[in-house]
């Protein structure tokens, strides 16, 4: 199963439509389930809901063989932590999908580093979905502990000096 998610905050018609049209044109041997948020486009070729509560979202995420999503950091972090193959399409400011192009920057950087695949436009999606089937993401070691320790030191010094 492929889990398609675009967050619940803002619509992302471009991605949902691209995937729907690919399935309509080429057919697909895999089942797709989608959380499309406030996207107005309704896919005809797979099941889509606007939002899922956290536990259901996590269930679909963990059951999926691969994930397709916007390049939102919440989803990217979940995919990296679970080692799921991920294909992202960055939201772009020129289409009013987001206020700046930070999603484009992180998609490029993380694709370069082998953590995910990225489609930069609807025309890329077919090819990248093919690659997604056999894509094995690079393992990423979080350095959260090092950062947390740095903040702890700062807080403890502050607390001690009070």
């Amino acid at each position, binding site marked *: 199963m492929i889990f398609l998610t675009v967050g619940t905050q803002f619509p992302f018609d471009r991605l949902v439509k691209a995937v729907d049209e690919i399935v309509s044109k080429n057919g697909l041997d895999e089942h797709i389930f989608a959380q499309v948020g406030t996207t107005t486009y309704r896919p005809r070729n797979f099941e889509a809901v606007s939002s899922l509560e956290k536990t259901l979202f996590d269930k679909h995420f963990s059951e999926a063989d691969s994930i397709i999503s916007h390049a939102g*950091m919440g989803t990217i972090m979940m995919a990296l932590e679970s080692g799921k193959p991920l294909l992202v399409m960055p939201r772009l400011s020129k289409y009013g999908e987001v206020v700046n192009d*930070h*999603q484009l920057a992180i998609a490029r950087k993380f694709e370069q580093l082998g953590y995910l695949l990225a489609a930069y436009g609807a025309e890329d999606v077919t090819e990248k979905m093919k690659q997604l089937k056999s894509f094995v993401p690079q393992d990423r070691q979080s350095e959260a502990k090092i*950062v947390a320790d*740095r903040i702890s030191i*700062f807080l403890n010094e502050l607390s001690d000096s*009070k």
Partner: protein
Amino acid sequence: MSNTDKPKSLRICLAASAGGHVSQLLKLAESWNGYETFCVTTTEVVRDKLSKFGVVYVVGECNRQHPIRVITVLLRCIRIIFKERPDVVISTGAAAGCMLCLLGKMLGAKIVWIDSITNVERLSLSGRMVRYIADLFLVQWPELAIRYKKVEYVGAVV
């Protein structure tokens, strides 16, 4: 971490917009272990994720494209800061976090800012504003610590 007998006595405001900002903030949870905390976020959806770190205030989403919402969110942030009087504001962004940092600083709070990993080549707009008043400003790409002054890189949260 220091293991002094002295009780930990800081009141910390944890501020992060829904989505990736909250996810990155939560990765740092052990840093404020033992301190009194409360949270500010932007949508109800993430309230549960934060509720173990004290009272959660939801101020609503805003960005530059919606000036009226910016004012509404700002007023809510002002009310929260005056009511809670934090000693420290820790934020991963975005706009609401930036407002809380600026407001907190005016009332004497220390500011810890962690710029989101999505800012690869330059700091976020919020980060660029907070940089001037931050007491600890962390970035998640080493290149950014070279490019900007008063910015520190120790690793990536993600």
